[in-house]
């Protein structure tokens, strides 16, 4: 039922993300990376840093990681997680369809866990599709250039960070009885985290913002240099998301539904 209702969102986000994936690979030329960086230097420094384009890296890994994972691979999947989190629980409660569903033998825990699994599944699907295209295309165009260990670790951390953001959105979707509040908090907090990440990268003076956002854990250079550090971070993020989704399920199981 949810796949039928939300597949368009998953497809749209995947396609938009894919356009950037394709563009980044098509634009890549090992001999002109330096020129590209010189071109970017013409733009305001703060803007380039905020978008994560400040260091494109000398090789394919560095180039793709900085071009995609500083901004694009976060913002579009983030739109998915906050929009769908609201649709999965709060919107059903708001419209009254949840009340009908819960007067059948389907338990609240089953409903909430199913929705949570779908939420994460959609996010992973977006990355599987786009990452698959990226790996295939880069191996065709630049055979052997992409070092998979570091790149997969970066993707793992990005997915887990977005799962934490999704967990926050899902928790508020379970707490609130209407879409308005669910979106206000469930979208507001993850979006604020993302804005803090961008602000923290503008200049050294604003670097402190990185301590109040989960997105600063997507430390591209550090993960590429030490992929296993990335795996450790991903595990911590995974545990946090389990707590957030679990809290959502517990709250939903105990709440009184508006009727």
């Amino acid at each position, binding site marked *: *039922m949810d796949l039928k209702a939300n597949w368009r969102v998953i497809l749209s986000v995947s396609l938009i993300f894919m356009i950037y994936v394709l563009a980044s690979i098509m634009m890549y030329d090992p001999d002109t990376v330096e020129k590209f960086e010189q071109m970017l230097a013409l733009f305001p420094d703060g803007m380039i840093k905020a978008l994560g384009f400040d260091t494109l890296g000398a090789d394919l890994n560095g180039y793709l990681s900085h071009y995609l994972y500083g901004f694009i691979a976060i913002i579009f999947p983030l739109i998915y997680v906050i929009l769908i989190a609201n649709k999965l629980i709060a919107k059903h409660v708001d419209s009254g369809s949840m009340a009908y569903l819960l007067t059948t033998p389907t338990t609240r825990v089953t409903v909430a866990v199913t929705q949570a699994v779908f939420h994460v599944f959609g996010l992973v699907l977006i990355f599987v599709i786009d990452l698959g295209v990226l790996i295939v295309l880069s191996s065709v165009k630049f055979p052997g250039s992409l070092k998979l260990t570091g790149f997969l670790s970066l993707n793992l951390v990005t997915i887990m960070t977005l799962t934490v953001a999704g967990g926050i959105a899902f928790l508020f979707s379970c707490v609130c009885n209407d879409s308005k509040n669910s979106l206000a908090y469930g979208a507001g907090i993850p979006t604020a985290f993302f804005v803090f990440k961008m602000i923290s990268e503008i200049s050294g003076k604003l670097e402190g913002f990185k301590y109040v956002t989960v997105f600063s854990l997507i430390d591209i250079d550090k993960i590429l240099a030490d992929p296993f550090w990335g795996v450790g971070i991903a595990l911590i993020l995974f545990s946090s998301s389990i707590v957030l989704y679990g809290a959502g399920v517990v709250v939903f199981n105990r*709440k009184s539904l508006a009727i």
Partner: protein
Amino acid sequence: MITVNGLYHSYSNDKKYAVKDVSFEIERGEVFGFLGPSGAGKSTTQGVLTGLLQLQKGEVSVAGYNVKKPSRTMFNKIGVSFEQSNVYGKLTALENLEFYKKLFDVPTRDANELLEMVGLENVATQRASEFSKGMKHRLTFIRSMINNPEMWFLDEPTTGLDPAIASVIKDIVKQEKAKGTTVFLTTHNMFVADELCDRVGFIIDGEIKLIDSPRNLKLQYGEKLVEVDYRKNGGTVKEKLSFIDEDDRKHLKDIVSEGTIEMMHTKEATLEEIFIKVTGRGLE
């Protein structure tokens, strides 16, 4: 079938109760009407009975199950149709019913037969998003019958429907009652309650003021009068005559024997009039 003892419910978890000290029992096969104006506590009571609202204080059992910890099997025995209809717009009418059939662990009814009962058989394969409000209401109504419920909760089942469809809905409720289904009917429509209910409870400001059968209430609160229109001297005379007064009874007997009566009505009170007498407030 339903036992409620000292039920209290507050949405703000303070002493502002939406329902307070509500107690009643409903026998198997009975149609019990819960009458009250908007905000009286009808839907809150129904919410607790159907497990949507947590039981905060009091004892409530439905179909033998304690709703404090409702079991999955309890929901196999109940059917619910809220005032606000809700269907999956992307699915057809038939798919909506087939989807709900899968949610129950008991034998279910034939979806096509249900659609036919409310005149939706010709739009069975049409997407529910294209339905009018009344059609969605009918689909929601029959969906609540899909599991052959022993205990059927109906919230304003005829509100917003045209008289012909409302009549079909009322007939279905009567048929289900005849089969032994227990019905908890929440409404502010006194005519529906009068026609369908074995007993009614008046609720206002979260408290039950009175429970009795519509007949007993009418006898208790109605005027012992008959209004009669009859022909006399080339014109029509209209009179109100008492059943109790000896002279009025004799006069009525004379009018009947003359055979000049055009219209005659007993003046029993309507449920709405009784509600106003008992609670001091109207049902709207």
